[in-house]
């Protein structure tokens, strides 16, 4: 692109970012504080921000895993749950909770709400933005807490950290599995697709667009363009002027999307283990289809929901069994870069 073209794009993106921030500002009225413990947030605390709905089954493990990694405080928006999620969250000592009954889709899938909370509370903190069905892992996560990761990132002047969303699935039909809240979900969801990912660079936001995995293989083989995006930038040293653009796939300013090395080397990166396919997914996807809150043009995804409702077996003989992060690193699904 020409120099003037670059400048024009930069200018447009600057305004886009301001628009997104303004949107978040307007949407703040949709949030009602349920339990505000943000006074507990200490400087240097690592925060986790999330929007969720009816996640009572996933929550115990989700909170437990990320607490162990070293999350200092959770900022959570509850979108009209009716399964006790709200009460459960309100009882947690390190959770600040807001609730809203407004549209998830119109809030850009919860991002507007979170952007507001991040403006308010995450400025100058490292902030991990996740869905309730994403479990964050990174190289050495079993021996080094998040504080070690973020201080290493700061020493290396990185403000953002990339991850691949890895869809985990069971062997056998989805609803034939048994899961109790608090269990390790990967005892059931022990399998993943090891090497069928497709990457394109998106010049506008300078991010990578990764698709593939089991959902592309099973549900979108006839229309791969629609296969879900798996690239994410969940961990960011937040500034109140930042804004996620679409889910946590990309954000502004553009430089934060450059979580990859384009000269041949490997930067460090992690994986979001996706627990979407726990047994309750069948019921949930029926509801999601009805609500039409999860995709921008929902009708195109009816087939996907129908396939899911059919209780499929996603496992195939070439599936890989999850062992640990070292395995993911060796397979090239994440990288430790030069973090010895």
């Amino acid at each position, binding site marked *: 692109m020409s120099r003037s073209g670059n400048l024009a794009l930069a200018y447009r993106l600057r305004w886009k970012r301001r628009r997104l921030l303004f949107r978040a500002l307007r949407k703040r009225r949709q949030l009602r504080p349920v339990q505000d413990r943000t006074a507990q947030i200490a400087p240097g605390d690592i925060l986790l921000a999330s929007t969720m709905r009816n996640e009572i089954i996933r929550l115990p493990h989700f909170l437990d895993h990320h607490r162990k990694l070293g999350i200092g405080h959770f900022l959570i928006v509850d979108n009209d749950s009716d399964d006790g999620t709200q009460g459960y969250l309100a009882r947690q000592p390190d959770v600040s909770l807001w609730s809203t009954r407004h549209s998830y889709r119109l809030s850009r899938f919860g991002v507007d709400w979170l952007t507001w909370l991040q403006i308010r509370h995450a400025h100058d903190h490292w902030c991990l933005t996740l869905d309730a069905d994403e479990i964050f892992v990174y190289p050495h996560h079993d021996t080094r807490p998040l504080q070690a990761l973020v*201080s290493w990132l700061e*020493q290396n002047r990185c403000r953002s950290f990339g991850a691949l969303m890895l869809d985990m699935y069971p062997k056998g039909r989805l609803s034939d599995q048994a899961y109790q809240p608090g269990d390790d979900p990967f005892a059931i969801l022990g399998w993943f697709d090891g090497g069928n990912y497709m990457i394109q660079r998106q010049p506008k936001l300078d991010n990578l667009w990764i698709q593939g995995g089991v959902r592309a293989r099973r549900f979108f083989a006839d229309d791969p363009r629609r296969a879900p995006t798996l690239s994410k930038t969940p961990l960011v040293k937040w500034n109140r002027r930042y804004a996620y653009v679409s889910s946590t796939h990309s954000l502004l300013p553009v430089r934060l999307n450059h979580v*990859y*090395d*384009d000269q*041949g*080397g490997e930067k460090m990166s992690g994986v979001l283990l996706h627990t979407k396919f726990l047994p309750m997914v069948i019921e949930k996807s029926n509801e999601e289809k009805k609500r039409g809150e999860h995709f921008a043009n929902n009708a195109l995804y009816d087939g996907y929901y129908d396939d899911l409702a059919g209780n499929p077996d996603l496992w*195939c003989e070439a599936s890989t069994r999850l062992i640990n992060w070292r395995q993911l690193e060796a397979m090239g699904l994440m990288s430790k870069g030069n*973090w*010895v």
Partner: protein
Amino acid sequence: MRTGIVMLVHTAFDRAEQLARHWAASGCPLVIHVDCRVPDTEYTAFVTALSDLPEVRFSKRFCCEWGTWGLVAATQSAAQVMLDSYEDVRHVYLASGSCLPLRPVQELLDYLDARPQTDFIESATTADVPWTIGGLDSERFTMRFPFSWRKRRKLFDKYVALQRRLGFKRKIPDGIDPHMGSQWWCLTRATLSAILQDPNRQVYDKYFSKVWIPDESYFQTLARKYSNKIESRSLTLSKFDYQGKPHVFYDDHLQLLRRSDCFVARKIWPRAQALYDAFLTDQAHAMSRTEPNPGKIDHIFATAVNRRTHGRPGLYMQSRFPIEDKINSLTCAPYSVLEGFGDLFEDFETWLSKATGARIHGHLFARQRAEFADGKTVISGALCDSAKLRDYNPTAFLASLIWNTRGERQCFQFGPRDRQKISWPMAKDPNAHISVITGAWAVPLFLSGRDFDDIRGVAARHQLAEIKHMEILQSSWSKARLRVWTLADFIKAPMEPLQAIINEISLKDSTVVTEVPKMADLTGFGDFLQKLKNQGMHPYMMGDFPMPGDPADTPQPKRKTYQVK
């Protein structure tokens, strides 16, 4: 005689205090320098916390920004305090607040006692070692660096470029020969006081204050002038990454650090509780009195730097996606592409797989589906045979296939009937070993017995596709290893090429072909080609086929067993 510790501290004061007590417990006097940027309250609290130790002194505070003179000034003044306050100190060990003694301090003291005259300081000339950060080696001694490398990188780079263009050079003072090395040293009183009392010290100080990263060159250079006995190595294990930043050690490095046999290591993460517990409190593990041997763990750091700067070739992922001209090869390992063989020989894949023991795929880029070996619909890495998924990103498909099957040679068929988008990526990939029999696509047409008008159209399409494909393979950008025969040439002497392909594919070195694949019956093929010509479609990719009636148009040798020895 004793060993004194000069400790530079700028953060993590609780750990610094713990270390000071550890050194002091073994009878080492300490002089501590605290960075001037530390707030006074924190400084005072630190001083108070250590006030019960009689042999701890604090030296004048300087601002120690990385790569600037402040670090040297701080060291100088602290060393002076050490030499003045403790007459019985014979060695001075320079350490930091994030250093950690790995072996009992007594072992270090004994080691130094046994070498009373030796200075341990890494010191090498820039001409001889490739330690360059930011592209500078000897120039760090001959240029000026008024701008911070960390904070004002662009200005720094521009100013360096300007000086290069103008040919600017500072004069190196007489009597010194610039050396550099690790910042962490252990010098004898004799050497250190000679450096500090040098009659030319003002000249040297003035010169080095404008050198880039003087803490890696001031003492390293001047020690060369005065020392009687230099051991050019640091007693502190300190590893740097490719940007000159120190590697940090965590709890899980415990065994690694023990294995190094080094006396002291840096930099330790302040919250690495297990390391502090193990090395500061547990003296029982005292190791055999071996020489420090950081070399034992070097490869781990070398591998890490290599992974960060070069990565794993053929891998594409969320944190490695090289732009096209930064990759040498698309894929991670060599693979074979066979074009035309499947058309000419019956059941070629089975034969080849038997002859080589390798996994031989069919047409991976066929229009209907990716024809994986053994009719599989999904193979390693859950790569599936859907044509749409494959065609959505054929490059990713090929790179993934080769990556997923690392350690097992891949081989597949290709031809003008297949999707052609992969031609360019394959041609530019030096790992692609492509063998082509041009024009062989006509054989199945010839054998099909279809309506001739149909055949004519199909033949024209195939020939066009093959011409384009061959242009790409033979273009100047092509890096693939290429072998091409025309059909006519190939059938005259098929054994040699087949043997070559088998040698290329099979893991065993000397597989000798004993059984030939069955070649299609080409009787009348010349006629067929002539008929195409008569229809105005000139098939020329097959080479010079004998005309019908030509005496050379004898049936090709078939089903004859060749023995190639």
